[in-house]
């Protein structure tokens, strides 16, 4: 591999890892607090991309404003999902699974009905041109993803480790009954977790809209990767999800560059299996007492 291609691939890996991290962190967080997986998480990502499509491509808003709009809009979708699906099915994991899997289809059809199914929606690239690093050309749009992910993850870290309600969210994930004994309202916490979860998935979709085919089904590939990342990282561990996301970003990008995308998916799943053989609790997961 020549040096230009190597740098190019490394940069692409970091960009891919950043996006995986933003998506997976939301999934891990919702799972941590609710102990239920949101199978419509990929569709939240898709909705984020459509927010950019509508506000930026159709209504002509500035790109950054359109991206920021994805945070409240998809965040609110997360909150509504908690209220209408997760809360009523809290005592029944299977019902929660069926309902969110159903929600995924509902969102796909809804978006398809509103903006069309067959054609991919084109979102013009707001930042043309590419950075030139040692002969490698990396599109600005791809580079932009990296600082955006760092800002989002730092903000989340600050909230979880420095703000009282964020700490309460961690307490809830570690021991919900004991958290309630401290006066922490579990319903408010699950709503908060789902709001953040939706917002982060939406943000990831919004950032990728210009460089990813925008279709009602774009959540499919993402949800698989997000689950691999979350399982590899240790289900509830936010730090584990970030670590696994970066690892998988490198694995996927390098294998895709050297071989093809299908092989990359297989190698990614194999990596997850290998991690689970050595550490069944995931990279940074903890063994339940």
């Amino acid at each position, binding site marked *: 591999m020549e040096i230009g291609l190597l740098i190019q691939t490394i940069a692409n890996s970091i960009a891919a890892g950043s996006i995986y991290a933003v998506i997976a962190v939301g999934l891990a967080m919702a799972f941590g607090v609710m102990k239920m997986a949101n199978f419509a998480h990929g569709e939240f990502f898709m909705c984020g991309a459509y927010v950019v499509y509508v506000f930026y491509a159709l209504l002509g808003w500035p790109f950054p404003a359109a991206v920021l709009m994805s945070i409240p809009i998809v965040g609110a979708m997360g909150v509504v999902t908690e209220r209408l699906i997760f809360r009523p099915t809290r005592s029944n994991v299977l019902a929660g699974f069926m309902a969110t899997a159903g929600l995924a289809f509902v969102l796909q059809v809804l978006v398809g009905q509103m903006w069309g199914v067959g054609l991919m929606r084109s979102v013009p690239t707001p930042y043309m041109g590419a950075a030139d690093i040692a002969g490698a050309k990396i599109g600005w749009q791809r580079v932009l993803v990296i600082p955006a992910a760092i800002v989002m993850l730092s903000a989340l870290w600050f909230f979880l480790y420095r703000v009282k309600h964020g700490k309460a969210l961690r307490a809830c994930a570690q021991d919900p009954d004991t958290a309630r004994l*401290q006066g*922490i309202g579990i319903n408010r916490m699950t709503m908060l977790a789902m709001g953040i979860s939706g917002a982060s998935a939406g943000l990831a979709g919004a950032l990728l809209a210009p460089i990813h085919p925008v279709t009602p089904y774009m959540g499919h590939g993402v949800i698989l990767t997000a689950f691999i990342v979350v399982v590899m990282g240790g289900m509830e561990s936010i730090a584990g999800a970030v670590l696994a996301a970066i690892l998988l970003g490198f694995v996927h990008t390098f294998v895709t560059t050297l071989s093809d995308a299908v092989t990359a998916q297989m190698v990614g799943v194999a990596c997850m299996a290998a991690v689970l053989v050595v550490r069944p609790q995931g990279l940074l997961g*903890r063994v339940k007492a």
Partner: protein
Amino acid sequence: MLKLDDVVVHYGTVAAVKGISFEVDENEIVTLIGSNGAGKTTTLAAITGLHQPSTGTISFEGDRIDHLAPEKINALGIAMVPEGRRVFPQMTVLENMEMGAYLRTNAARIRHDMEEIYHHFPILKERRSQLAGTMSGGQQQMVAMARALMSGPKLLLLDEPSLGLSPIMTQEIAKIIRDLHREHGRTIVLVEQNARMALQLADHAFVMETGKIAFGGKADDLRHDAKIQETYLGV
């Protein structure tokens, strides 16, 4: 202060608590003793709202609290130190204590109470940045007690604080319970299998057997009761 009247608690179809009544007055330590499975922990779960009673009433300071959610009951001034400590393992000692004060907003008062609690548990001040899950059983017990005290409770519920602790650590925890009672006049409900320790600390004691209160009375009297000595104190 706290009054249980004919409280029945079911797990599925099985009644774990079969109609118990007792009262706790302000500034006293009341203990529930009895063997494993007698329904002591379930009784506390009913008081804290984690497991709501099927029939009967529980009132606190004159108001009924059965059917309130645990977070609401905590807000009324009842704090619980759960069986098995249940510290938040991935949080520091300080964060665990902050969670105890979750519903409080007066930062100056919280800081004042924290210093007072550190006075009872000096080791927690030293170890405040350590993850609670990495501490010894006795230290975790202290974290759980400190966390409960951080809410500034009117009533403190302690579920098996001596469970799994060494005799020396058990004595230390007993001393802290006594200090909390003497210095601040705290009202405490103590659930214990260690009847010797419980009867030494308590003003009143109730003996639970298979979901019912078999008998109760002044702790001093029970300590000298021949049947209690034989069954629960191993004399």
